[in-house]
Each structure stands twice: as structure tokens, then as C-alpha cells.
């Protein structure tokens, strides 16, 4: 079963459509990496999932039930979230902030302790939050979201302000939570931050969902550049003329966005023209390249 399902989720501000027709499927017990460049609509979408912002059109189902203004307070008891800047009252200590959460949600001491330990904030609880570093505030925000032991965790750029070791810790934490059956949706504008933690990806660009699926599907979705190794790349390019967008790259010819049939034709042409071809290969791509590819071109 999917923990979060949206159909045609849309938000407009005046004439500007900032989120357009999203059909999200967030499977239960996965880490869903929600990716997109700045301003692509990640926070707006997450706010709609929590009913902090009302959609202009479309619907949200969370844990099989509609999420809207009349159901939200009931639904929110099982959803932990951290949206945009971390919460926490500056004039109170971290411990006092957590007691506020404990009290208003009717949690017991052990639940709060576990949340604190999982973000390793035990040593900082007596300090006023106003004196916290950004990383500490972020950890406190995550602890506040975790304390209620949610079925769904929605984290908007939770690694903001964390050092590399902190980012790694959060990654491990998210994996552990998913292992226990918690569904985690985590956004980032940097693929590298969620790459290793996520099983499912949703990629947003200018308010539209460019891609949604597993890592393998993501690799398959983006066609990597074709590299033709030849002893005379300039001649080879002249042979192909303007029929394909080829350019010389070191000792090879680089052709982006070409399918298998096109590849066969190009090789036949080159061989027919007497250009010496000794290697035809696809470029090794990192997920980062795929992501950049997708979001820059806005294709798919």
C-alpha cells in the first residue's frame, strides 16, 4: 500500500502555477527522495501533504485517508514533519521545547528520550535554543518530529546546516526508520545528500514531476551520451555532418540523446565513409549526472 498518494495536486499563486498536476506515490516503508532545484515547489508540495497549504486543485491521501482541513488534526497525530526552517522556541532550552511537544501530544518520557538519542542531542538539552547552531536546531526539529513515533515522516531539507558527519548520521537514521516500517519522505536540492538513503525518487522541476520511480528506473530513464572512439574524431564529425548533434570530446566523438537504432546508423555511416572506428560505448553516468540532466533540460 502507498502511504501517500496525490492526484492532480496543484497550487497556484495568482497566475503563477507553482505545483502542477502531481501524482505522487510514496510506498510504505521506503525512503522517498523528493528532489528538485530551488523554487521547484518541494516545500509547497510538502505543505500541501500536511494541509498547511490548501491545494488549488487535486487531492491528497495519507495512510489511506483524505488529508484536508477537516481531517488534518486527526491525521497529524501519526505524521511527523519538519518544514523549511526548524521549529523550537529560542527563549526555551532544547529540553523545555521537547517537554512542550511531549505534553501537547501526550507522549511519555521514553519516546522523547529515544528521539533525542537518535539525533544525538543528549548533551545539548540544557542550552537555550537561541544559542544553538543551525545543525543543532535541525537535530532538535527532527527529534520533535520523531518523538510522536509517526507512521509517516516528512522532512524538508533536513540536512540543511549539517556537517558531512551529521548528514551521514541522518542518512543512517532515515534508513533505520524505514527498516522499522516508517515511511520517510525527504526533500533536497542536492541529489548527493539523499542518493544513498533513498529507494524511490521523485524529481520535480518548475512544479512538474519529471520522474518518479526506483534508482534503476531513474538510470534507465535518462539516455547516457554515446561515445565513439576514433583515431580521427574531426573527420568523423565531418562525415556525420549536421545530421546528429555530435561534438569532439578528446579522442572521441560525443553524441547526446541518441537511441540504439540511431547508434547503428551512425556507426554504419562512419564505417561506410572509411572513418576508423575502434570503440562504441555509452558513458558511465552517476545518478548526479542523471539528475542534472533531467532538471536542466526539463525533458522526459
Amino acid at each position: 500500500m502507498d502511504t501517500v498518494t496525490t492526484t492532480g495536486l496543484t497550487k497556484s499563486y495568482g497566475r503563477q502555477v507553482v505545483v502542477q498536476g502531481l501524482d505522487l506515490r510514496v510506498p510504505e516503508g521506503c525512503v522517498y527522495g523528493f528532489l528538485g532545484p530551488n523554487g521547484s515547489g518541494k516545500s509547497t508540495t510538502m505543505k500541501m501533504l500536511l494541509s498547511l497549504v490548501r491545494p488549488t486543485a487535486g487531492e491528497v491521501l495519507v495512510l489511506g485517508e483524505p488529508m484536508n482541513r477537516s481531517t488534518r488534526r486527526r491525521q497529524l497525530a501519526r505524521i511527523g514533519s519538519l518544514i523549511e526552517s526548524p521549529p523550537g522556541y529560542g527563549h526555551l532550552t532544547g529540553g523545555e521545547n521537547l517537554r512542550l511537544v511531549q505534553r501537547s501530544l501526550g507522549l511519555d518520557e521514553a519516546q522523547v528520550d529515544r528521539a533525542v538519542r537518535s539525533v544525538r542531542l543528549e548533551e545539548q538539552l540544557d542550552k537555550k535554543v537561541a544559542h544553538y547552531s543551525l545543525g543543532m536546531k535541525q537535530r532538535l526539529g527532527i527529534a520533535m518530529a520523531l518523538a510522536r513515533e509517526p507512521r509517516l515522516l516528512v522532512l524538508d531539507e533536513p540536512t540543511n546546516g549539517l556537517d558531512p558527519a551529521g548528514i551521514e548520521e541522518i542518512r543512517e537514521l532515515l534508513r533505520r526508520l524505514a527498516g522499522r516500517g516508517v515511511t520517510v519522505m525527504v526533500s533536497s536540492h542536492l541529489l548527493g545528500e539523499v542518493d544513498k538513503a533513498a529507494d524511490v525518487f521523485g524529481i520535480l522541476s518548475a512544479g512538474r514531476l519529471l520522474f518518479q520511480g526506483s534508482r534503476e528506473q531513474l538510470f534507465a530513464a535518462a539516455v547516457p551520451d554515446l561515445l565513439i572512439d576514433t583515431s580521427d574524431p574531426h573527420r568523423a564529425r565531418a562525415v556525420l555532418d549536421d545530421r546528429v548533434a555530435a561534438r569532439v570530446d578528446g579522442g572521441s566523438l560525443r553524441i547526446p540523446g541518441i537511441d540504439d537504432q540511431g547508434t547503428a546508423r551512425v556507426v554504419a555511416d562512419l564505417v561506410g565513409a572509411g572513418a576508423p572506428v575502434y570503440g562504441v560505448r555509452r558513458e558511465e553516468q552517476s545518478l548526479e549526472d542523471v539528475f542534472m540532466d533531467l532538471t536542466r533540460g526539463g525533458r522526459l
Partner: protein
Amino acid sequence: MTTPFSAALGAELTKLRRSLSWSVVVLLPVVVVLAGSFTTVVSGQQLADGWHTLWLRSVVFYGLLPLPLGLGILASLAWRPEHRGGSWNALMSSPVPSLYVVLAKTLVVALLGAVMQLVLLVTVVLTGKLLFGLAGMLPGRYLVITVLLVVAVLPVAGVQSALSMAVRSFATPVAVALVGAGTAAVLLAAELGGVVLVLPWAVTARATQLATGTFGDSGELTAGGAAAVVVAGALLTLLAVALATRYLERRDVHT
């Protein structure tokens, strides 16, 4: 036993820790009472009509301006932490119902207002005894009025809290309190009767004028006069809370 509402109220009380509110609650009434008696004390004069004069000078003026102003400041102080960082997101993504959020804040502001009344009462008694050496005690009817005042601050607490919730600015709701208090003073001075009680700031001011003979008051504490204040106060408070809750339920969070 803790219910979801008592938990919300408890959370609001916790937020008052290290808050500036407490200085407002203590300083405002003390300064007003002392300022009201300052010239009399310095010139070595006596109060014309003992306790009654002292009450009139301290409390009637207090109800016209410092009290609504103080409540406006207390409401803005109470909402200030909610307008910072990710607090709104956190507040609205918790299972605590909007009604409880609004009600708990209103009650906390009113509670601070009630403590302010107590400080006022104690300051008046101490001033009467220590500075003027008045005989006897503050007449009992003023104790009844103090209790009435605790109820009468509710509508102003409700309206100011709603404003400070909706507006991020600290000063705007305080400015509204000043305008509201000024309007109430003018209307009360015009002696229009019960209709002025549609204005929340007029309810509070009217309560401080009970049994003083000022602003068209009869000079006696009557059941009718007291009931008008209580009923108008309760209705306006309900209205403010209902509108604020509705607003919170509908609006989007943008931080």
C-alpha cells in the same frame, strides 16, 4: 488528569518562562498607582475621600489606557515566538485543534491580565496604608470589582490575541489597542449607556469605573451594572475566539 486542552494550556504556561511578560505584569500597575498619587504624596496633602479617592485616581485611569495597552503588549509578547522560525509550521502540523490553540493563548493573556489586577490591588492597598496611612481597609466593593475585572479582561485578551496571531508585527496590534481604548473612552464619556459595551475595550474600562460615580456611573455597585459587564464580556470573548479559530482553520501557513 491531563486532557488535550489542559495539555495545550500547560504548554502555553511553559512558553511564558523567561518571558518579558512578567515585567509588564508587575511594573505597569505599580507605576500607574504610584504616578496617580505622586503629586499628592510629594505635596504632603491627604486624599479627599480616603480609599475612594485613591481607587478613583489609580484604577479608573488604569482602565482607560494602561490596562488595554498592557493587554495588547502581553498578547503580542505571547504570539511573538510563534511568528519566528518554523514555529507556525510546527504549530499547525500538530494534532492540537485550532480551537485549543486559540483558547489556550487567550486564556494565558487573560491570566496575565488577572495577575496584573492582583498586583494592582496589592499596590493600591500598600499605597493607602504606607504612603497615606489611611484607616481601615479598602472597602469590600472594590474587592468585588477586582474579581469582575478578571472577567472583564477576557474580551480584550481575546481580541488582542486574535490580532497578534494574525499579524506578525508586534506594534500593529498594540496600536489597535490604543485606538480601541481611545474610542472606548470617548464613547464612555458620552454616556450613551449599555451600547458602548459592544466594544471590547469599553467593557474593561467600564468595569474599572463601577461604583466610582465617574463616566455616568451611579456610584453604587449594582447587580445590573456588574451583570452587563460580565455578559458583554463573555459574548465578545466567545465571538473573538470563534472568529480567530475560523481564521486559523482556513488560512495557509507561509513562513
